[in-house]
């Protein structure tokens, strides 16, 4: 018998092993749902799979009775638009600020404490202030996400830029580079792969803030729908929505990862060393 630590599943078994827990979860759900429905056939808590497919047909394929829109797609488009805009804004601010704080000692000394402080404020707590300042429209949701993730991205980039070996900055100067040129050709390219990984991390929180914002004030969006149908306990809609959000989140993450590996080959080559 080999030690447990040396047990390696065969290539073929990998997929099966990875899928097994998902199948188990599914079975557990089916059993629990069955049990509840036997007690109360109208139970909304753990709907049967038939209810799910009906609900999915309703929200994804048939137009809504009231608005004539296909809800799932309208909601997805609305949420992704907000998310995309917020991520783009946060990326630009976080990158610029992070590079400045990390590479310029004078900027780091004066602004780092403020950014560190701001990053600790729970954004949900300052929502009322936000509403007053930017109103209740699309902007407020985008701003909430930005407030939530920009400080984290900024600090991440700052940290990364600080980790650039001092030798490289000196080397660039001995090649005649000015501060601006160093930022452009040394700091920026090395911060970019980190930006993508910071964004991938930030996406998790971004989804949270998006849902929180949509729960509070919205007319469409994935989070809006979940919190709306919560009013009548429509788990047959909530669960598919949650799974859909998870799938979309996974896809976004995957695409970012793929882009990053293609665009920053040097970075991933380096990690293997």
């Amino acid at each position, binding site marked *: 018998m080999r030690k447990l630590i040396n047990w390696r599943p065969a290539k073929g078994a990998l997929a099966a092993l990875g899928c097994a827990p998902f199948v188990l979860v599914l079975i557990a759900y089916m059993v629990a749902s069955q049990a509840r429905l036997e007690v109360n056939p109208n139970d909304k808590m753990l709907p049967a799979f038939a209810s799910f497919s009906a609900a999915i047909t309703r929200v994804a394929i048939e137009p809504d009775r009231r608005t004539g829109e296909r809800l799932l797609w309208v909601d997805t488009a609305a949420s992704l638009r907000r998310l995309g805009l917020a991520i783009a804004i946060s990326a630009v601010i976080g990158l610029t600020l992070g590079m400045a704080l990390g590479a310029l000692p004078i900027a780091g000394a004066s602004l780092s404490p403020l950014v560190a402080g701001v990053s600790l404020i729970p954004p949900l707590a300052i929502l009322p202030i936000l509403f*007053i300042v930017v109103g209740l429209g699309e902007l407020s949701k985008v701003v909430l996400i930005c407030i939530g993730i920009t400080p984290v991205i900024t600090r991440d980039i700052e940290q990364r830029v600080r980790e650039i070996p001092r030798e490289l900055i000196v080397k660039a100067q001995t090649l005649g580079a000015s501060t601006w040129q160093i930022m452009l050709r040394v700091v920026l390219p090395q911060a970019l792969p980190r930006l993508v990984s910071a964004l991938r991390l930030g996406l998790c929180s971004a989804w949270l803030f998006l849902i929180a914002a949509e729960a*509070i*004030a919205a007319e469409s969006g994935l989070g*809006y729908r979940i*919190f*709306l149908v919560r009013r*009548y306990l429509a788990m047959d809609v909530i669960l598919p929505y949650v799974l859909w959000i998870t799938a979309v989140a996974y896809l976004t993450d995957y695409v970012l990862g793929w882009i990053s590996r293609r665009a920053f080959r040097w970075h991933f080559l380096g990690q293997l060393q």
Partner: protein
Amino acid sequence: DEIKPKFRVAWTVYVGWMPWDYAAQSGIMKKWADKLGIEVEIVQLNDYVESINQYTAGKFDGCVMTNMDALTIPAAGGVDSTALIVGDFSNGNDGVVLKGKDKLADIKGQRVNLVELSVSHYLLARALQSIKASEKDIKVVNTSDADIVAAASASDTTALVTWNPQLSEVKKLPTAHEVFNSSQIPGEIIDLMVVNSAKLKANPKLGQALVGAWYEIMELMSSPSPAGVAARTAMAKASGTDLAGFESQLKTTRMFYTPADAVKFTQSPALANTMQQVAEFSFMHGLLGEGAKSAGAVGIATASRTIGASANVKLRFDDSFMQQAVSVKP
């Protein structure tokens, strides 16, 4: 000695439901429960919808809610529920507010902030009916009740529907005008104590205890005596305002201080008509569940008549316990 049966009921902050807090704080609930040999725990929740969901999921045996939510959440979810106590109806506690405009007709084309699918939504629908308009003429923006005051302060918010105490905060804004309120549809937004029908049938003592405690407090609350003032002051505190603020909210609430009052309201045919309208509104907005083929999918039993499917009655207005209270004194 034997183990007393235990029950849990949930309540959330609202002017008409503050007596439940007082019942727990003053020991009146415990007195009645002890007398009947049961235990009743009164639990305050922060989020109104969540409290009803919890009740529907079976975590509570009773819960305060409006007539519309009783129909669309527990009843439509297959949980047979009984409106044990009809406590009050909103008589101005819910209102439509416009900023900068002062006529209801001006609401057309605006974005209206409100808690979607709640009684606010129903009030708005009724307001629109009164000016021969429909929901198509406006755009509804779902806005959480906790944030509606902040939302009202935002410059791009022009119209909203909400209830007290938020309503009174919103009305304080310099440009705000209340253009429609629930006193124009009296008796349609009703605040209830709803309990699980099966639990109630098995334990009538639960009904007796809740009703007994409620009307003891009602008597105290309506009295001008120092004890009455003290009770109202305590309720005011618990709802985050002072006595004056609380009494101004009471003015827009039609409380049924005596059981006889409540019984009379429950037995009137008007209640059946109201519930008919509510059922239609709920069906139109998909609140009765997707299985529902018509507004009558979920049956509602009132003293005067049964509305909708009599084979599927899930919401019952039962005045029998309140009638007992008319005769019984503690």
